């Protein structure tokens, strides 16, 4: 039983990271924004959920679902501000700006003690449906909850990627100037997608609070951003299935290093080994499978919408050839 609870905890953590990776994939993988601010929106989501739901005087004491909705809205508004100010920047410049925003958010959380209780954080936070499910089984239930919402995230992201919007997003990733030359409003689109992806990250923040049942600024270091990006690159950037698999593989491998039997004095070394392992995995994948474990797959619109071609053949020269090829199909 204990091992089952431990394993389900592991899967829940993997699921949380997988949700982050799917959300980041919309933004960083399909649209191609180099966004290093993931942990910032994550922290804002988590903190706003906590502050909305805990009892007065610290919080507003709202019910849980209102807290979740509120946290998504607050994260969305904040990312609207961040996106509006920084999305005109290109690649590296955007990367460093979003990274800076994430750091600012963490430092604000650490220092504004009246709001967040500073570095001590807030303890003993409630989890959803805690009263209904007895202690030991709760983790299993929670894992189920995480997996269900991961499935919803995945479904949503996959639909989006297959839609005309997904194609448009990939076009922006491939060539921004050409996209502009065919009359598309790139900045507005980027902002829209950026806010969507960040709000999704904010929502995952609530799950993280439930999982940890505490909240403190040191939970939101840039290590999370890098883990999510590593998971995405590992699994296959631009590919939702890759994002999910990458996240699970990375988390499971990292956690598996806990089981290496070593004398107590080496435990610090072992903690460092976890970083080493994920770094090594990244290098190996980039060397041997540069597109990730699952490469971004090209799907033809003909397959997605089951189109058949009913154009009239215009050039007499092409008639024989086209007719032949259609016959072959």
């Amino acid at each position, binding site marked *: 039983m204990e091992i089952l609870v431990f394993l389900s905890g592991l899967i829940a953590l993997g699921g949380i990271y997988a949700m982050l990776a799917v959300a980041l994939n919309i933004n960083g993988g399909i649209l191609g924004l180099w966004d290093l601010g993931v942990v910032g929106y994550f922290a804002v989501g988590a903190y706003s959920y906590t502050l909305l739901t805990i009892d007065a005087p610290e919080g507003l004491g709202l019910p849980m679902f209102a807290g979740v909705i509120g946290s998504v809205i607050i994260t969305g508004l904040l990312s609207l501000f961040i996106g509006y100010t920084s999305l005109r920047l290109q690649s590296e410049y955007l990367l460093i700006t979003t990274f800076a925003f994430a750091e600012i958010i963490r430092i604000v959380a650490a220092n504004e003690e009246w709001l967040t209780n500073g570095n001590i954080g807030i303890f003993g936070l409630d989890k959803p449906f805690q009263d209904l499910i007895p202690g030991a089984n709760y983790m299993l239930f929670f894992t189920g909850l995480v997996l269900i919402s991961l499935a919803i995230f995945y479904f949503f992201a996959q639909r*989006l990627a297959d*839609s005309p919007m997904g*194609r448009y997003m990939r076009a922006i990733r491939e060539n921004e100037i*050409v996209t*502009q*030359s065919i*009359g598309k409003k790139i900045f507005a689109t980027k902002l829209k997608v950026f806010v969507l992806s960040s709000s999704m990250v904010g929502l995952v923040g609530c799950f993280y609070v439930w999982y940890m049942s505490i909240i403190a600024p040191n939970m939101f270091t840039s290590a999370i951003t890098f883990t999510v990006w590593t998971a995405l690159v590992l699994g296959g950037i631009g590919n939702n299935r890759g994002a999910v698999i990458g996240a699970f593989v990375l988390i499971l491998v990292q956690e598996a290093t806990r089981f290496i039997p070593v004398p107590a004095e080496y435990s610090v070394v072992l903690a460092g080994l976890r970083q080493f392992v994920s770094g090594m995995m990244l290098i190996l994948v980039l060397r041997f499978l540069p597109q990730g474990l699952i490469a971004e797959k090209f799907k033809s619109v003909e397959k997605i919408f089951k189109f058949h071609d009913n154009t009239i053949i215009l*050039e007499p020269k*092409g008639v024989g050839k086209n007719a032949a090829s259609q016959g072959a199909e």
Partner: protein
Amino acid sequence: MLQVKELSKNFGGVQAVKNVTLEVNKGEIVGLIGPNGAGKTTLFNMISLFLPSNSGEINFLDEKIDTSTPEAVVGKGLLRTFQTPVGFPKLSLLENLMVVPPNDSEGLFSIFYKKKKIIREEQEHYDQVCGLLRQFNLYEKRNELAENLSAAELKLLELCRQLMANPKIMLLDEPASGVNPIMLDKMVQHILRLRSEGMTFLVIDHNLGFIYRICDRIYCLANGELIASGTPQEISNNDKVKSVYLGAS
């Protein structure tokens, strides 16, 4: 149709384009030639509003457009191609073209609540794209990624993509560079066919044979200034053009 008046641009101390005035009438193919660094592409970038001009005026369809945005100008029907055609390398030919039409379904959630409308729209665009690809003999490759095309095919794809946006005038930036003679013949045929259907062109190229073949009128730029204009005949006999461009004295 397109009038450019006294257009100037400087990058710091470099005067890239100096008081250029030119005009393109409906149905014409107008050439723009000049040595490397003459400011041809800068002029294109200004006309398509990718670059703000320092002074001067651009009129398109009797409307002043120089304070407008690149997107708005495309909406009016002014399209440009690029010197190095890359398109969208990791998108298939179909996708390369289907992304062009202004799409109602380009909302984040529209695929969930108006799926039927999107499919209908997509089918329309798909038919249009297939027709276009057939005209340009690219139909067989419709599901290939654009990065697998040859340079000449990419030039054709570039042309197709801009055609999808219903242009009234097309600015072609070196459509003939890197294209082999047989493909060049086809390119000429396509351009002349489009012109006979009412399209207007402004073409930059270094291949003078190509330019002389298709153009009604030619402007010659050197060091940012217009040094000559006229019919192909006049340009080919112009001493100034010969000296700056062909190096003859």
